[in-house]
């Protein structure tokens, strides 16, 4: 990081700084080195190594002017002061944009992890209303011991049976008497110690029984919001809410909330993330949705039946156990291989149908809405300008009839935009997701001599660049067209191996967020060099026209 931005990890040196206010007292100081996950640490640790005398320089630079107000640091789990956070967001410093900042307490903090009142006093802001999850939450853990036992029984059936016969009734009762209250207590405590609160800029989740953990999720860095309802949760009338920012993991989801509360919270979070005034944010309510696409069950079923993998996995599930039976005549072997294969076949056919059933895509001012699922329902919201790449997939048997559209959002596991739809309909949805985009019709093939580098396959490669996207195609049978908006390009690379150079060819890679790289393979070397330069210009200027992170501001 530059010497100009505040860097909490150099704070030990600041204690010697005469300009620091005197009331930076002992109680405040333990907060300062409290960022074990601070991504700048490798940077600063390397600094003295790289340049003797570099560190004092840096410390002086980030001294009185740059250092975030110590009073803010003295508050509560706000050991990440807000100005520290914004300095971080603006490039230069933190990888992955530092969206959620965590402290894994326990080891460092001795000051009794922030009573809510303490935080209000320390930060001088309006008191946070901390909330708990839905009271049904403890029961989600209840099945865990049962699942462990069942898993063990399936894994090793012979021994499980042996153990079961040896179990007496008393032993069983004693076991139950230990396991059930233990699980219940664990469930209850983990529920009791989980709080969340919505501030003007963050969603804060405080959790953990022994190892405290506080996640501050910055709303302006929001990439997507998901509400999911597994089957049992639907029965109980509760839902999970998950905020996707770069760097969150499964622990940062709110499970479970009441159904209505989850929707209200989603509306409020989206309103705050969009840039509505804090007072208005809780009253804005759900944004209206304009439906774009609905996939009828018949089409979905037909599309699953017309997919090669469905039949391949089914054939494998039937043929392999039969062959094994003739080879070994052992029922156990057949079962042990047949069941997983059947499971895979089921997941790729029935599982896909169930998961993508009733697929609805809608457009709202808050972004894209995707609702789907037969048993488990999922409702995803992707705010405007969050899509990093889009893929149009066209399996051999669908050609000319349907396409499938997949997308990538940084920090999100959502991958499908349209499971199956006619080409024009899918393109209309893409135009809504990436405004101003028309899908290029005919990508240009590489020159004919590319056949020397990739026989046959070269015919599948293609490249098209429009005003809005960089698009490449690959695949002979199952065609995939990858689109990257120019505004999302992080870096551009040109690579050329010896054989490619001999043939005067080169590859151009375009790196987007969400870990995706789109490659234009085997272009003419001169064209590739020109492409490299032009794409760097386009990606630099493309961002200027892009909407702001707070899309309503």
């Amino acid at each position, binding site marked *: 990081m530059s010497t100009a931005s505040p860097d909490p990890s150099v704070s030990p040196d600041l204690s010697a700084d005469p300009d620091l206010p005197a009331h930076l007292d002992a109680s405040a100081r333990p907060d300062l080195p409290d960022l074990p996950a601070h991504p*700048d640490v490798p940077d600063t640790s390397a600094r003295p190594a790289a340049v003797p005398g570099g560190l004092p320089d840096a410390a002086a630079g980030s001294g009185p002017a740059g250092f975030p107000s110590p009073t803010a640091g003295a508050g509560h789990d706000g050991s990440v002061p807000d100005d520290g956070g914004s300095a971080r967001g603006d*490039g230069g410093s933190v990888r992955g944009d530092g969206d959620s900042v965590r402290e894994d307490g326990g080891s460092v903090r001795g000051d009794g992890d922030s009573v809510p009142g303490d935080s209000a006093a320390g930060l001088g802001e309006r008191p946070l209303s901390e909330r708990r999850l839905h009271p049904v939450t403890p029961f989600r853990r209840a099945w865990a011991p049962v699942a462990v036992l069942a898993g063990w029984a399936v894994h090793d059936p012979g021994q499980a049976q042996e153990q079961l016969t040896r179990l007496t009734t008393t032993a069983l009762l004693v076991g139950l008497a230990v396991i059930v209250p233990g699980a219940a207590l664990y469930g209850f405590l983990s529920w009791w110690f989980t709080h969340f609160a919505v501030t003007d800029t963050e969603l804060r989740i405080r959790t953990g029984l022994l190892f405290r953990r506080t996640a501050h999720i910055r709303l302006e860095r929001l990439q997507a919001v998901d509400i999911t309802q597994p089957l049992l949760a639907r029965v109980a009338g509760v839902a999970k809410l998950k905020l996707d920012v770069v760097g969150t993991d499964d622990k940062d989801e709110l499970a479970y909330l009441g159904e209505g509360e989850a929707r209200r919270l989603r509306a409020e979070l989206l309103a705050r993330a969009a840039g509505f005034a804090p007072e208005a944010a809780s009253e804005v309510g759900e944004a209206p949705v304009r439906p774009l696409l609905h996939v009828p069950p018949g089409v979905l079923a037909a599309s699953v039946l017309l997919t090669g993998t469905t039949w391949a996995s089914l054939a494998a599930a039937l043929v392999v156990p039969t062959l094994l039976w003739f080879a070994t005549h052992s029922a156990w072997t057949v079962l042990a291989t047949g069941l997983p294969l059947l499971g895979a076949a089921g997941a790729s056919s029935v599982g896909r149908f169930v998961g993508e059933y009733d697929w609805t895509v809608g457009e709202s001012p808050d972004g894209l809405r995707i609702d789907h699922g037969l048993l488990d329902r999922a409702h995803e919201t992707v705010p405007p300008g969050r899509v990093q790449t889009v893929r149009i997939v066209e399996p051999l048997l669908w050609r000319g009839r349907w396409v499938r559209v997949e997308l990538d959002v940084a920090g999100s596991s959502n991958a499908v935009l349209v499971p199956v739809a006619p080409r024009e309909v899918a393109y209309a949805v893409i135009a809504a997701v990436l405004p101003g985009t028309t899908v290029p019709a005919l990508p240009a093939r590489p020159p004919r001599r590319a056949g020397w580098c990739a026989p046959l396959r070269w015919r599948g490669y293609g490249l098209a660049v429009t005003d809005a996207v960089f698009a490449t195609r690959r695949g002979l049978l199952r065609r995939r067209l990858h689109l990257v908006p120019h505004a999302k390009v992080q870096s551009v690379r*040109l690579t050329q191996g010896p054989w490619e150079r001999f043939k005067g060819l080169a590859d151009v890679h375009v790196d987007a967020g969400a870990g*995706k790289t789109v490659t234009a393979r085997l272009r003419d070397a001169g064209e590739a060099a020109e492409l490299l330069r032009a794409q*760097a210009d386009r990606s630099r200027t493309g961002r200027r026209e892009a909407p702001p992170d707070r899309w309503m501001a």
Partner: protein
Amino acid sequence: METGSVRTEGNAPGEPVWTGLPPGLLRMRRLLLVVWLGLLAVVAGVLLALFAPPGWVALALLPLVLAGWGWHMLGRNWRSWRYAERADDLLISRGVLWREETVVPYGRMQLVEVTSGPLERHFRLAGVQLHTAAAATDARIPGLDPAEAERLRDRLTELGEARSAGL
């Protein structure tokens, strides 16, 4: 200071001004190569002289041949590394057989790291590593003079802040 690729100056506007690496990295790599392969040659020579029929000792020359070849290859590789700071992006070009040229717009940089291991520090070298939000971005400049690495880091961060673009 002598650098690998000659600093091209006075060429047409719009053409990047390339900077090569200082000779320290080449010196370090060559020294390591000679030390390790020299040791190998000595050990092999002693063992072969003790336990193998006479004549086999000639095999101990093999590492020395390798060292000569490596000496040449290291030089080629070192000369291939170069970088250019343009108005809005950083260019890094490297590789002899497998060439790679990377363009990173300043606004996309998330983190600029200066790294230097104990050995590099002994030779007064430091590397600059750039990170963007894309994990595939491979923008690394090894073997710089520490002062130059510091300057580059500060300049890149400054430009990155001015042109910040985020995800």
